[in-house]
């Protein structure tokens, strides 16, 4: 429980500081501090049981089938990191309380800080690897928010983004690595994974898993070549840098390295990748640090260097090196956090962190100078400070492991070189800031001296550095052993930490390093020519930027240049895809699948004529498509051909429908054509015409081929059921109509809905569209003044009752013979259209005084209610019934489907009226202005 509280307190209450501002100026800081201390207390309670026994685990299943559970473990290693996170966290909160005293967004800062703290605590206590990844990414996100805290500054935004990008990349890789590990082991539980080293290492996918995990580790811990985000992240407020970028977040990578050390280490691959890259990073960071001008920049590179050192130790595959690495984690956290805070004090006091402007601060900032000097000495590895001890251990391991290499001197030499640079930049830091004569760039009287609250955390950390250095056996050894045991278990070596080990090779190396460091520091101006080039090395940042830049450029080219958002650009891929899916299968079968086993049947002469009409109409439409009215005529021709094909091939209902729709379409297009150009200009580019023609031809061939392939195959179908039951069970002899209103009435319901929506859409689109009528035809001919030609106007009137009668006839007989609500609706619609044509819109519309839209709704309602009525009889929607009705001398058959058909009928009429009258109303009398 206490274990869970450690994590949950900051993670679930991170928003409290946002509220905490209500409790006074420093309510946010106080809230954050209280939460941190409470978590610290919880840690104390949790650790009371001791860290030597079996690890404590709490478990909460989150996504069990994925293998993700929220289980926490507390062992030596997680205790150490919890203690660092919370201990330094508490100090940082205290420090920030003063550092950000003037910032009115500090409540947010503390919230983000708590969020980060919680994520970090969860990460280091995670028992489930997937949960670890979750929290790992959360540290990246909260760090992003912290780095960008001063988001008005471009470098803050840039730094934050870069940090997030690089660590996010690592996080994704880690996710992959963890998933691989989980799949290899069969479990994401750390306990199981740590016990499965032999399985993991022997698995063929071990290299991939390792590579992915290490990518996460290296990015997070800023190892070369992924180091470059860390200096950029220095744009964060100093308390955040001190916390995240020295003590905690960057150590998350290192933490994972140790965490998985028992499971992944011990192979050459591990040695070379972790050790090799660590060593490189150590030297690189140290060298670059020397030539930084920004105090925080120097500290950032120094951090990189020290993280490299720690990584090297873990890479060496020896138990003692692990102990040394763990020790250095503690030491580095102490001195680097204090140095960052000191940098903040300097920045806070002088307004600059540029070492070229600073100088001579020892006098005015005496206590800071002393504290910084001690911490820097620890960083340089000078006795009697903590840094010295762990560095000695590092040198010792370097010598021992290096001894087995082909060039036994190489590793120790490189280590010493790193040490020398370390000494050099430490000297430079202290010298340039405090002890050299003032540059004159600063007004020493206007210095802003740090409050005690900012000094105290530094002093406390420096005191720890000294205490550990002087009395390691007393102060740190028990903890270190507990921690080491949690990693190394039975293999934990005997460790005795002493300041003095006697004269040995490591001591000699230290001596050389110090001497070299002093030398380097003195001659650094001479080296600065070399140094100036260093940060500009084609290092990670540039490569990263270049890669991303290229990626963005490629993306723009791919998405913008290649796609001009033209209709053909959308349609042609579809056509091409049709050609591929339509021809590839037949091609693969050597075209044998194209023709089925059935023989073709002879075509009746009439059918030949009708198909010819259809085809000729289409070809003529193509031929005349630029002369639009003519194209409409030829389109009707094709439609007529289609109608006749339906007639010939035993589909009377289809023929009727096609025909009526055809006319309605023609009227519609004529209405629209009045406001469109009468002719299309010739398209000039021959290549395009050729391309389109070939595509069209191939498409037509594919369709013909597909159709032929279907028609020449034998076939079994469910359709005979309809034939057999239409009369007996559906109450109608027109099988197609019974299908439409009964068997598949649901389709028809949908179909009339589509019609209704189309009408609504047209009404909505044309609601406020008014277009001046053209004064003359496309050829410039004036319109005839005869608005409503006489004979049509007069004779259409007696035609109307006749046509309505026909419509009623078609409506009522549809269930048994060709016809039905849809066709009847079209007939009525067309009959009314005739009135519009003959008498004009105003004449006809003023005689139809009802809302067409409401009529659509009513039609749909009738159909829908017919369907729903079935539910009242406890049968499914649309279930129909029929029977003979006897009314006196009358006897007739009624089917409930007829009510449905009536709904269809009403809808169709209303839809036609809506669409055509809306379209008819678009035209307005031309004004002078519209002619211009």
């Amino acid at each position, binding site marked *: 429980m206490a274990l869970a509280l450690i994590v949950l307190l900051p993670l679930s209450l991170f928003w409290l500081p946002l509220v905490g501002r209500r409790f006074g100026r420093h309510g946010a800081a106080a809230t954050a501090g209280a939460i941190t201390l409470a978590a610290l207390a919880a840690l104390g309670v949790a650790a009371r049981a001791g860290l030597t026994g079996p690890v404590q685990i709490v478990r909460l299943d989150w996504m069990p089938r994925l293998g993700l559970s929220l289980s926490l473990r507390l062992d030596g290693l997680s205790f150490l990191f919890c203690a660092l996170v919370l201990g330094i966290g508490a100090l940082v909160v205290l420090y920030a309380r003063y550092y950000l005293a003037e910032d009115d967004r500090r409540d947010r800062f503390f919230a983000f800080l708590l969020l980060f703290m919680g994520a970090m605590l969860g990460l280091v206590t995670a028992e489930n690897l997937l949960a670890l990844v979750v929290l790992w990414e959360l540290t990246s996100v909260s760090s992003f928010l912290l780095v960008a805290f001063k*988001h008005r500054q471009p470098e803050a935004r840039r730094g934050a983004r870069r940090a997030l990008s690089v660590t996010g990349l690592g996080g994704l890789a880690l996710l992959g690595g963890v998933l691989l590990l989980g799949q290899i082991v069969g479990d994401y539980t750390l306990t199981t994974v740590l016990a499965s080293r032999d399985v993991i290492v022997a698995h063929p996918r071990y290299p991939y898993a390792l590579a992915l995990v290490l990518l996460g580790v290296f990015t997070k811990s800023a190892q070369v070549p992924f180091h470059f985000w860390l200096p950029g992240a220095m744009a964060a407020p100093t308390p955040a840098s001190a916390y995240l970028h020295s003590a905690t977040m960057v150590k998350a990578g290192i933490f994972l390295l140790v965490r998985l050390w028992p499971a992944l280490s011990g192979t050459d691959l591990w040695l070379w990748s972790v050790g090799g890259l660590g060593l490189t990073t150590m030297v690189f960071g140290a060298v670059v640090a020397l030539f930084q001008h920004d105090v925080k920049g120097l500290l950032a590179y120094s951090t990189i260097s020290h993280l490299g050192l720690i990584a090297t130790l873990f890479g060496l595959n020896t138990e003692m090196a692990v102990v040394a690495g763990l020790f250095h984690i503690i030491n580095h956290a102490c001195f680097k956090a204090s140095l960052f805070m000191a940098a903040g004090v300097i920045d806070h006091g002088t307004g600059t962190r540029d070492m070229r402007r600073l100088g001579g601060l020892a006098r005015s900032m005496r206590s800071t100078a002393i504290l910084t000097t001690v911490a820097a000495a620890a960083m340089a590895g000078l006795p009697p400070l903590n840094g010295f001890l762990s560095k000695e251990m590092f040198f010792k391991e370097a010598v021992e492991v290096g001894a087995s290499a082909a060039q036994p001197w190489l590793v120790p030499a490189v280590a010493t070189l790193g040490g020398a640079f370390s000494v050099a930049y430490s000297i430079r830091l202290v010298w340039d800031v405090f002890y050299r004569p003032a540059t004159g760039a600063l007004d020493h009287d206007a210095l802003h001296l740090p409050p005690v609250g900012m000094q105290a955390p530094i002093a406390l950390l420096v005191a720890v550095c000294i205490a550990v250095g002087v009395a390691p056996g007393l102060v740190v050894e028990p903890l270190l052993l507990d921690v080491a045991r949690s990693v190394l278990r039975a293999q934990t070596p005997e460790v005795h930490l002493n300041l003095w080990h006697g004269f040995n090779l490591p001591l000699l190396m230290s001596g050389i390093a110090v001497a070299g460091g002093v030398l380097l520091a003195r001659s650094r101006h001479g080296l600065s020519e070399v140094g100036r080039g260093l940060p500009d090395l084609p290092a990670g940042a540039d490569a990263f930027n270049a890669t991303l830049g290229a990626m963005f450029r490629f993306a723009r080219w791919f998405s913008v240049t290649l796609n001009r958002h033209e209709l053909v650009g*959308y349609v042609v891929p579809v056509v091409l895809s049709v050609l591929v899916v*339509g021809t590839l299968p037949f091609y693969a079968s050597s075209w044998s699948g194209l023709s089925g086993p059935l023989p073709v049947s002879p075509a009746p002469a009439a059918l030949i004529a009708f198909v010819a009409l259809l085809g000729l109409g289409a070809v003529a439409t193509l031929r005349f498509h630029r002369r639009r009215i003519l194209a409409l005529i030829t389109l009707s021709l094709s439609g007529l051909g289609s109608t006749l094909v339906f007639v010939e091939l035993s589909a009377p209902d289809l023929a009727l429908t096609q025909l009526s729709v055809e006319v309605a379409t023609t009227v519609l297009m004529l209405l629209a054509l009045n406001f469109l150009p009468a002719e299309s200009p010739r398209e000039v580019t021959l290549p395009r015409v050729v391309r389109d023609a070939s595509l069209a031809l191939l498409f037509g061939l594919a369709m013909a081929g597909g159709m032929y392939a279907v028609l020449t195959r034998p076939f079994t179908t469910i359709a005979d*059921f309809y034939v057999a039951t239409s009369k007996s069970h559906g109450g109608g002899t027109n099988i197609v109509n019974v299908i439409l209103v009964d*068997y598949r*009435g649901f389709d028809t319901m949908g179909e009339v809905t*589509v019609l209704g*929506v189309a009408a609504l859409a047209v009404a909505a689109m044309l609601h406020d569209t008014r277009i001046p009528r053209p004064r003359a035809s496309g050829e410039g001919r004036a319109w005839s003044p005869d608005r409503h030609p006489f004979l049509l106007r007069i004779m259409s009137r007696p035609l109307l009752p006749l046509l309505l009668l026909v419509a009623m006839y078609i409506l009522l007989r549809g269930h048994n013979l060709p016809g039905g609500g849809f066709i009847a609706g079209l007939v009525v619609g067309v009959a009314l259209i005739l009135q519009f044509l003959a008498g004009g819109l105003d004449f006809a519309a003023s005689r139809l005084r009802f809302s067409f839209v409401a009529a659509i*709704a*009513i039609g749909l309602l009738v159909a829908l209610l017919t369907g729903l009525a079935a539910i009242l009889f406890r049968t499914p929607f649309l279930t129909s019934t029929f029977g003979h009705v006897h009314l006196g001398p009358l006897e007739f058959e009624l089917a409930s489907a007829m009510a449905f058909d009536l709904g269809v009928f009403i809808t169709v009429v209303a839809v036609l009226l809506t669409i055509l009258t809306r379209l008819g109303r678009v035209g307005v009398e031309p004004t002078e202005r519209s002619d211009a």
Partner: protein
Amino acid sequence: MMHLPVVMVALPLLTAIGCLLWGARAVRPRQSLVTERAVSQASLLVLVVISIRLIVETAAGHVFVYRLANWPTPYSIALVVDRLSATMVALTAVLALFVQVAAAGDEDGRGRFFHPLLHLQVMGLCGAFMTGDLFNLFVFFEILLIASYALLMFGGGAVRTRAALHYVVLNLVGSALFLVAIGMLYGTLGTLNMADMAVRAAQVGPTDRPLMRAAAGLLLLVFGLKAAIVPMNLWLPPTYHAASTPVSALFAIMTKVGVYGIIRVFIPIFGPDQGEVTGIADPWILGLGLATLVVGTLGALAATELKQLVTFLIVNSVGTQLTAVGQFTEQGLAASVYYIIHSTFLTAGLFLVSGAVCHQRGEIGGRLSSGPAMHEGRALGYLFLVAAMSAVGLPPLSGFVSKALILSATPPALQGAVWPVVLATSFLLLVQLSRVGSVLFWNLAGDVPPPGSKPGPHASRGPALGLLSASVLLAVFGGPVDTFCRDTAAAVYDREAMIQRVLGDDAPTPKTRDDMPVPPHGYVRRPQPEVPVP
């Protein structure tokens, strides 16, 4: 209880009718809006409740087989509601409710018939998600398409008109191809019910294989067009970009219809153990999914405008879904179901946030360059942060969970192809979205919002919050949701059980046309009053 499936279709239609009739009474178009809003919202709430009921029922193992007009399957159209259908329907209802609330601020008054059209769109979606009949699916596709055309044009304007023109023409071509595909399948299998198709597809001979492959390819193409799969992805960004904000949020579910169609066709009909047609399109689907994922991501990188970016995120999400579906494993499908739920809410929420951002930034709109402060910059910023994290797949949100599910579902043989693409695209999105968030919310040209800009539309913040909170809830309740998704996927893969349920115990064997003079005994329905109990 039994009628619940059809209510999901009938109620939206009834609501649309009601709104139309009410609206027709009003003299001025806006006059009836208040009532329409209330009716529309109440109806959507009922739909949400019903759909949750459907989920509860189906989660308990029940499958609704609603034989419309009370004819036996496969002769009737049957609505088949299993876990997956129920999920999709619920997703639709909830999304529509949020969209309705968002639009009820003032967007719905900028044109005519918003609420009827919204309900008709919902009707089309629900029908498409529930129907067990291929041609009926076509009909519902058309309903949802025509409603989407109308909604796309909602609010007017030249940009919208141009986008609509392209979208409509392209989809008309697509609909024509759908009919051809249906024709080829009917002409070979002789049936339209998808369960019956699965039965008959397993029996086709080797000579019919090319024809079936072509038909399957055409269907893939048709669904791919709806879903915006490469190479038919190009239409989506300009179209969704042009739509008004609530409409584009609603469109977040449109692409899922295509993916859903692929799931329903390519697993039971052309899936495993189907004789000659086994796995007819499997490698294609995975390959196209990965390609879509890449193309969507590249588009997101190239985006210069916020809403445009979101549209590419949709393409990206389609690719992701297909990558999961295309593995053709139960786990892959489970992951994709989870992802579908996640991405629907996420992209819809992102659209609403984007709409508010564009609105509040005044003239500069959603352009990804330094702009003025926003009235609600802080709130919108946090909403965007959550959305972006979820989109990238950063924990602890549903985006992370879904990516973990997809990656972990990938069988080892496919990991080499799938993992690098999924991880790399996630990384690129991370880079781009952090850039975008930083530009929009941090790189401010001034402290005060632009003159003349208004803080509204207020109504969209609540729905955006609601939609994005799904990212949190789906992650928090990841365990049960994951279990549900896995059961859902298992049910989709359990072809035999589905066939049993849909076609009943006396699943008819194919009859040749020559030997069926009278209706076989089992088919006679009347005068049996009893309804086939699913």
